[in-house]
């Protein structure tokens, strides 16, 4: 089937609610229909154009002022209408959450980042989503709200597969909460793609907490190597509560590359991804350790 991306052929009803209350009402009313939230539209509109994703009711949440906030007191709280470019300009994000900062900066280009949101990236649930590994290592959680009430879910538990999440049809992600980060910790993001603005062959985030020359705790999350971003738990086990040195980082990186189950696709073959993962994990471990004040 040939696609005409110049126009949007399918017909739908459009809503631009100004309040959260109104939005939840619409979501509840149309929960049994093809109803979609429109945030930046950078995934949704592409899908509506190219794979004819069916939408009957579209709810634009970008003009809801209640969802347009960044709160930096005690961690980070980011509303669902905030574009990525506004997040990358917050000093605390760059300083305290460098993996998130680098992940966002690696995405597309400025015009897309002026439109796109974090909940859009997560709800789209691509295995290559660049905010996902950073948010998982920082133990970020999503606030899900509906007429029935609200709940919070870890980003790690939210995505279940390619394009699949645990969100219910009447629920809205209203914000992302990231806990405050300990001063003894360091983190890093890494992504390899064909050209800079491209989707990742592999992306990853690492976060570790240092106690002298011990690694007290760590999280290693890789994307684009499975149906969703995954933690390299065996590699994490090797590193936790250990005295850090070069050799250990090499072993941990090797373990992480053995744990993942990459596939062959247009972007890379599996074997290349495995080798690449090892190098990327090792480099990022060193970077994160240095950022935590550690020496090798």
């Amino acid at each position, binding site marked *: 089937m040939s696609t*005409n*991306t*110049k*126009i*949007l*052929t*399918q*017909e*739908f*009803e*459009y809503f*631009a609610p100004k309040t959260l209350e109104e939005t939840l009402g619409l979501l509840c009313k149309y929960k049994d229909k093809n109803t979609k939230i*429109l945030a930046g*539209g*950078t995934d949704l*509109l*592409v899908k509506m*154009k*190219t794979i004819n994703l069916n939408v009957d009711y*579209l709810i*634009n949440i*970008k*003009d809801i002022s209640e969802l347009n906030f960044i709160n930096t007191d005690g961690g980070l709280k980011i509303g669902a209408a905030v574009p990525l*470019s506004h997040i990358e300009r917050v000093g605390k994000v760059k300083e305290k959450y460098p993996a998130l900062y680098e992940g966002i900066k690696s995405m*597309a*280009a*400025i*015009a*897309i980042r*002026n*439109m796109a949101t974090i909940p859009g990236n997560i709800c789209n649930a691509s295995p290559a989503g660049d905010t996902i590994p950073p948010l998982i290592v920082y133990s970020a959680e999503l606030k899900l709200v509906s007429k029935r009430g609200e709940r919070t879910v870890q980003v790690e538990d939210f995505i279940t597969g390619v394009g699949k999440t645990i969100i219910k049809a009447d629920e809205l992600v209203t914000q992302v909460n990231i806990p405050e980060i300990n001063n003894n910790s360091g983190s890093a993001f890494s992504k390899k793609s064909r050209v*800079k*603005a491209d989707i990742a062959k592999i992306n990853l985030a690492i976060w570790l907490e240092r106690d002298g020359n011990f690694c007290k705790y760590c999280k290693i999350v890789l994307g684009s190597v499975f149906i969703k971003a995954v933690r390299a738990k065996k590699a994490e086990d090797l590193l936790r509560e250990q005295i850090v040195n070069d050799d250990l980082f090499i072993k941990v990186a090797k373990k992480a590359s053995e744990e993942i189950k990459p596939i062959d696709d247009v972007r890379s073959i599996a074997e290349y991804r495995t080798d690449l993962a090892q190098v990327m994990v090792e480099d990022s471990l060193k970077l994160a350790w240095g950022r935590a004040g550690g020496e090798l």
Partner: protein
Amino acid sequence: MKKIEIEFTINGKKRRLSVKPNDLLINIIRNDLFLTGSKYGCGIGECGACTVLLNGEPVLSCLTLAATVDGKEITTIEGLAIGDELHPMQKAFLKNGAVQCGFCTPGMILTATALLKENPNSTEDEIRDYMRGNLCRCTGYIQIVKAIKSCENNLETS
């Protein structure tokens, strides 16, 4: 499909329009308002030819529903010059030979003005990084980077 009444400012002028929910901003700008400076290239966010400024920030009009710009302010390439006086970035592109076929130029210039506002002292690497979503098939980018750089310097001295 129910039509939607929207009101927005484009290049300083208030406009009221009745649009369909599935109308794309690029088509409204080009076909209804006859501002054909913004180009349709890929339609899927890859090329930047359709870039316009929305409340001062570059966005892609091929991935923007017209209905969503209600109450907002849009600038297209036609809105940069003041009367016959070209914007410094437009002059810099001309002076440096940064325009060949011109298809990428409107989006390129609008993105470049946003860069200058955000970071008036960017290095060549920073310029290339910021401009990475605007593709040019003709110039090889060297003259474009030079134009932006020269504009920076001019703005500093003026």
